[in-house]
């Protein structure tokens, strides 16, 4: 599967300037991250497994999917001003994608334009760095990646727990309906069961 034994966080850096790619790569490597650099927003989306129109590339050859699976990206750092797809466009596409929206995105720009900064933050960017980017900027990245990872792990744990609860409830119901064939009750309960991640479900179940 190609996973590193020491799981370093993996950062995808996007910039059309070769010099800036070299710089950000060095800054990130010095900070102990695994780094991939690409020169455009569309190449970034390809690497992330998304086609440019936002659809998941499920019908593409397995190689591009493999990229996505083997090399989980923990953070995207992108230049704002790029020909074609800007960093802002890329940010939007990532946040609109159900599979990618949890990945923290950071924007870099050589121009200090408050309206631009606000726009990016409102669209979901975690940070906005002025170029040239410093080591002190890169030091701010880790908490965002840790937070995203914890969120994913909590999500996963929650889903697993919910599955277990569902199984337990279903078993109880089967037992119960064997004693009292009352199918309506079972239907009512099952309607509540479909996983809705935003609801805290445990309290609902204990009422039953």
């Amino acid at each position, binding site marked *: 599967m190609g996973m590193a034994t020491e799981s370093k966080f993996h950062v995808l850096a996007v910039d059309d*300037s*070769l*010099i*800036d790619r*070299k*710089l950000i790569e*060095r*800054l990130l*490597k*010095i900070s102990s991250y695994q780094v991939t650099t690409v020169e455009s927003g569309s190449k970034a989306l390809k690497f992330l497994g998304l086609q440019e129109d936002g659809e998941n590339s499920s019908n593409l050859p397995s190689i591009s999917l493999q990229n996505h699976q083997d090399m989980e990206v923990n953070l995207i750092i992108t230049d704002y*001003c790029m*020909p074609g797809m800007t960093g802002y466009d890329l940010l939007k596409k990532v946040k609109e994608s159900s599979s990618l929206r949890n990945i923290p995105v950071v924007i870099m720009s*050589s121009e200090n334009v408050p309206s631009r900064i606000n726009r990016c933050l409102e669209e979901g960017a975690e940070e906005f760095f002025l*170029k*040239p980017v*410093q*080591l002190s900027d890169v030091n701010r990245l880790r908490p965002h990646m840790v937070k995203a990872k914890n969120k994913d792990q909590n999500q996963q744990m929650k889903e697993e727990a919910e599955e277990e609860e569902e199984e337990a409830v279903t078993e109880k119901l089967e037992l119960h309906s064997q004693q009292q064939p009352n199918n309506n009750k079972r239907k009512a309960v099952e309607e509540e069961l479909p996983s809705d991640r935003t609801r805290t479900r445990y309290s609902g179940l204990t009422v039953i």
Partner: protein
Amino acid sequence: MLGFGVERLRADMNRLLALLFHQGVLDEQFLQLQQLQDETSPNFVSEVVNIYFHESEKLLRNLRGLLLDREFSDYKKMGIHINQFMGSSSSIGAKRIRNICVAFRAASEQNNRAGCLRALELLEHEYCYLKNKFHELFQMEQQRLLAAGARYPVQN
């Protein structure tokens, strides 16, 4: 005797760098670049600077080509080149060049062709100066490494 050479070279390099800072040719971003160089990436600064030379010369050629064209009117295209040059100069700490780019961009935004030509000439001059100084620095660094190597000969 060789030890003395190494220290002398280091002092000369530092003096040249101090001069460039004092003249406003370089700024602290160049120091940042040096800090990113270590045993795992021992040629980082020269690699980046060489990329800068390569890109800059291309950009300068493009800019001159645009401006010398009698029919020239594509200020937007010129603006793109200027921004690129500004960005890369800023990234390596080439402060003076970057500042000239700012003036160049202003002239371009006003469609001021004469102003652009003046700015371009200044740019070419400054770039030439910076390139020469970097070559001096890199030569001194080479010599210092050689002298240090002779002092601590590599076994086997």
